[in-house]
């Protein structure tokens, strides 16, 4: 079959409402042109979100510690234990950051750090509990790797760890650290980090406890197209099982200042991956555009490649900034971008429900 015929055949099946396979996805990646991907992704977006609105959240990223022993070669943010540049933010500093955000109308903190051997579950329980006592904010926090490590340090099961964190105030878990959910890739870029099954296991446990999480993908390091497609399939399978993912957020590896180094994939590749995510993840409601890694122009175009969400206004961000992503956007600019694309900007909460 000619490549163009194969793309047409896949598209016809897709537009009739059928779910596409791994092989379909790979053939679209290889042979569909940019406009075909845009059209298919947008079709799915309209099917799931017919209203012409683009959501975003007013929230703040707080990186409570940069101490991390895992030494992922793609990361420019961490400092190993013992480093003079390592820090753990004090409660006072964290509260100050939250107060500033609340005063500016923010409703969510995204709190993430590293795998710091000095911080056990009691630290987190105390932190989350006191945040909840002082502020009416949603805590979107930690990651699979942090939770696995807290469980390990505290000699608890993952499920019990999540349950205790939740009882202390943790509301939802970001799907960070998904990287590419293929062990062949993870072993190369983060040999000491959790495996694919461990990552998925944390998400499954959280979902089973009734918590929602997001899922992410960081592609473009050593991975090939097959790996990325496999990642999408793993997320889709778990979502079929639990329905616990609120959103999927892909972005590309940011090589600046990292040990792994290498070249950064372009925004063109990003739009392709974003569209394929939307096309294949028919059971994940929201796809988020990453303006912090892609810049405002590509992020705005992402709204025609499957994204229905613009992420966070993000008061501060330190992780991808350490690797050279330096884009920033305030709420007014974010709204201008959304209007310019022909959509109504709507504030949302962490569950992707509209708020005023």
């Amino acid at each position, binding site marked *: 079959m000619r490549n163009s015929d194969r793309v047409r055949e896949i598209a016809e099946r897709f537009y009739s409402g059928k779910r596409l396979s791994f092989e379909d996805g790979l053939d679209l990646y290889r042979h569909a*042109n*940019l*406009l*075909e991907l*845009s*059209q298919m992704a*947008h079709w799915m977006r309209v099917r799931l979100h017919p209203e*012409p609105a683009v959501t975003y959240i007013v929230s703040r990223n707080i990186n409570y510690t940069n101490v991390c022993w895992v030494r992922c070669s793609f990361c420019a943010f961490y400092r190993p234990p013992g480093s003079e540049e390592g820090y753990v933010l004090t409660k006072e500093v964290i509260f100050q950051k939250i107060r500033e955000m609340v005063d500016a109308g923010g409703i969510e903190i995204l709190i993430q750090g590293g795998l710091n051997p000095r911080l056990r579950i009691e630290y987190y329980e105390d932190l989350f509990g006191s945040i909840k006592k002082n502020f009416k904010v949603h805590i979107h926090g930690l990651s699979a790797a942090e939770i696995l490590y807290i469980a390990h340090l505290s000699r608890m099961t993952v499920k019990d760890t999540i349950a205790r964190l939740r009882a202390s105030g943790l509301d939802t878990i970001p799907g960070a650290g998904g990287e590419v959910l293929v062990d062949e890739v993870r072993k190369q870029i983060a040999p000491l980090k959790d495996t694919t099954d461990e990552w998925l296991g944390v998400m499954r446990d959280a979902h089973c406890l009734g918590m929602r999480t997001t899922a992410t993908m960081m592609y473009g390091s050593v991975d090939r197209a097959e790996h990325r497609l496999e990642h999408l399939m793993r997320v889709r399978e778990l979502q079929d099982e639990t329905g616990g993912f609120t959103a999927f957020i892909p972005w590309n590896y940011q090589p600046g200042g990292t040990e792994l180094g290498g070249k950064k994939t*372009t*925004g*063109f*590749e*990003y*739009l392709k991956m974003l569209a394929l995510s939307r096309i294949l993840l028919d059971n994940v409601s929201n796809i988020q555009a990453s303006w912090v890694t*892609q*810049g*405002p*122009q*590509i*992020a*705005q*175009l992402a709204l*025609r490649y499957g994204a229905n969400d613009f992420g966070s206004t993000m008061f501060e961000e330190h992780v991808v900034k350490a690797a050279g992503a330096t884009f920033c956007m305030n709420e007014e*600019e974010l709204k*201008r*971008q959304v209007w*310019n*694309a*022909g*959509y109504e900007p709507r504030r949302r909460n962490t569950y992707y429900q509209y708020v005023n």
Partner: protein
Amino acid sequence: MATEIAQIDGGADLLLKVLSGERLSASDCLRLWKTRDLTSLGALANLRREAVSGNAVFFRREVHLNYTGLPVPSCPLCNRFASRRLSPGQWERSLELIHPDIVAELHLTAGASPQFGLDALCAIVRRVAALRPSLKVRAFTWSELETAAEREGTTPDQTLEALVEAGLDSLAGGALMDLTPDRPHLVGERTAQLERRAPWVAAAAARGLRCEVSWVYGDEDDPQWIIDGLARIRDLQDRWGIFQCFTPLLFQWPSDDVEIPMATGYNQLRAVAVGRLILDNLARVRGSWAALTESMMQVAFWYGADDAGGAVLPGDDLTGTVIGQEQLEELIRGTGRDPIDDLRLTNDD
């Protein structure tokens, strides 16, 4: 793709026009500019683009030289190369470093200075031709030409005749109107300026000189104003046919004092796609990395653009290596398009 185009307002009609090669009206293009359906706009522009250039993306091996070091009032792109004033000795030494097998064209534009009359411009062209006879010389914006002619009291025709004799191959041209930091002022006077330059276009046509043409828009300009300007370029091209390549450019002024809204990705692609559709008499539409970023350039190749601008090459201490040929070809191939060296093509003709 065709079904979705048919869904935009009057889309079926527009699709028929594009498929049959019929000319779109200004109001057709205004409707397209305003559509939310950027994919369909891109698909329409891509139909025209592929009819003209197939799967090719053209680029040139060029170096830039700004001999006055002053900002170029009609071109935000050329302003990237306006940094320091070069003495004749300095730029001549730089030219000597250029490897003739690697670089094919010299892009010579500068902010006009009353110190550079027609004789001075001719002398520069002659010197370049003597130092590097294999280089094609694409030089001078309308404002440099006007300044030189004014100083010398020559007509457009006499001015261009002298430059062609000195060895000029083609004109840089650029936008048909100059920019000022005070954009509203510019918008008010644009028609007069554009009409003043029409005789230059006619004179260039009479001398067989071809040139590039750009349109500089602000992110918050009235679309009607943008479309009117593009329609005027189409009229001039119908009459004189000297424009080789159209470049939509977002207004940028080389100063931190002037705050303008950042270009949106949508508007950048609207300008490329609508430019392609309205300028049906012009072969090339440029989406260059220098104007758009590498990522947006790649995307633009599917929204009507078939030209990547120049690979600015190493061995050139005037500009530093910005993006080399190999890297540019790789970026073009990464989009599924085929890179074609423009000047090699011309020389083989």
